[in-house]
């Protein structure tokens, strides 16, 4: 596991969550971790799966418009 604290699940983007899920699955499949650690990896994996599914369900296209050199929310007509 990484030495620094993992980001809280709810702060992860889809890409980050899915990438971590892939790493966890690879770690579990290697079978090199003690049981206790494997259990917590598995639990985090499940939480990541849930996070990814939520992000997919809730995803809403974000549209902004350039106004000069800055960005503003764009409302469709």
């Amino acid at each position, binding site marked *: 596991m990484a030495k620094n604290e993992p980001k809280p699940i709810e702060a992860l983007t*889809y*890409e980050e969550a*899915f990438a971590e*899920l*892939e790493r*966890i*699955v690879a770690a*579990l*499949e290697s*079978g090199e971790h*003690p*049981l*206790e650690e*494997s*259990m917590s990896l*598995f639990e985090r*994996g*499940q939480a990541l*799966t849930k996070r*990814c*599914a939520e*992000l*997919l369900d809730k*995803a*809403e*296209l*974000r*549209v*902004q*418009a*350039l106004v*000069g*050199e*800055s*960005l503003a929310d*764009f409302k*469709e*007509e």
Partner: protein
Amino acid sequence: MEQLALFDAAPRWTVSKLTRHLRQLMEADPELQGVWVQGEISNLSRPASGHIYFTLKDPGAALRCVMWKSEAARLRFAPQDGMAVEAHGSIGIYEVSGQYQLYTDSLLPMGEGALYQEFLRLKALLEAEGLFDPDRKRPIPASARRIGIVTSPTGAALRDILNTLRRRMPLAEVTLAPTPVQGEEAPATLVRALQSLNQVVAPEVILLARGGGSIEDLWAFNDERVVRAVSGSHAPVITGVGHETDITLVDFAADLRAPTPTAAAELATAITVLDLRQALIEMAQILEGSMRALFERQRTLLEGFQSSLRFYSPLRAVQTERQRVDELSRRGNAGQAHRLEMTRVRSVGLENRLAALSPLAVLQRGYAVVTKNKQVVVSRVQVQDGDALRVRVRDGEFDARVAGDG
């Protein structure tokens, strides 16, 4: 008179020979073999053959024209009587009727002819510079998250693009660089929109789009400045300008040309939200599978430890010794009994140390040894709802109760 001498001679020409001569004169004249002529269509007919026959008129004269089926198939509009057009082709004679006519290979609504010439000139120029070279084309990312759009904020093109992106990849973050897409100022603002988009948001891909329109409407997309801005864009550009049949110069400079704005949005989202969902389901299955496999492996390992422990247990030896102690005590051999008692105590110590040794490695890793009535529980069939259990973990033991046997 001189002229009489001519009349004296027998006719040198047949009608056929003369007509052929005239035809050859015309065909030898380069000016007549590539003419652009403007006029108004009249007497248009399109028989079953598919060829088009018409007359081009102006107030002073008329010109017969024919357009063969193969050329007529490429027309981007339906010519009609009364329409002002520009026709390109070669002048020849239809010998059977002695009629000279324009064999038309290209027919455009009035005004478009000049634009088309300009289009060809600019295309040749930019092509020679290498702006359209295939090896300049950059790959389009399969799952871009930051998508830039350069189009009119009020056009149908934007609506089509946003609907398509919303349906295919709602995780995307879209930045619109709004700009007019036709008119005098359009080329300059299109260039600025492309540049600001690259500078401010650095999108992974840019869609340059406009809905359908006449060749004049689309003209900004043939502007040299715009074409250069497309080829100079940091992010790869997908064009979706006009309809299927419209080709503009930005299409040649773009990294990918889409036939419509909707198609451009589709090409920018090769991987859709459905693909992500499928991948997630598969990943979740692998995750659970790997955990099940891990438990299975550990259980097998643990069962191996259990039988080894039982086999090597000093308990049997201790029991044998105990029996001998009892026997000797009965015989009143106190001294011997004492010696054996000491051996028993040592054996029990050994037993404890041994027992602590092997399972310790297992317990340290998070295992618990569960017993019911001193029997190790290795299978769920050994327990029932409500059974009292003893659980041994790394640093001690505690009681537990089965809260359900499902």
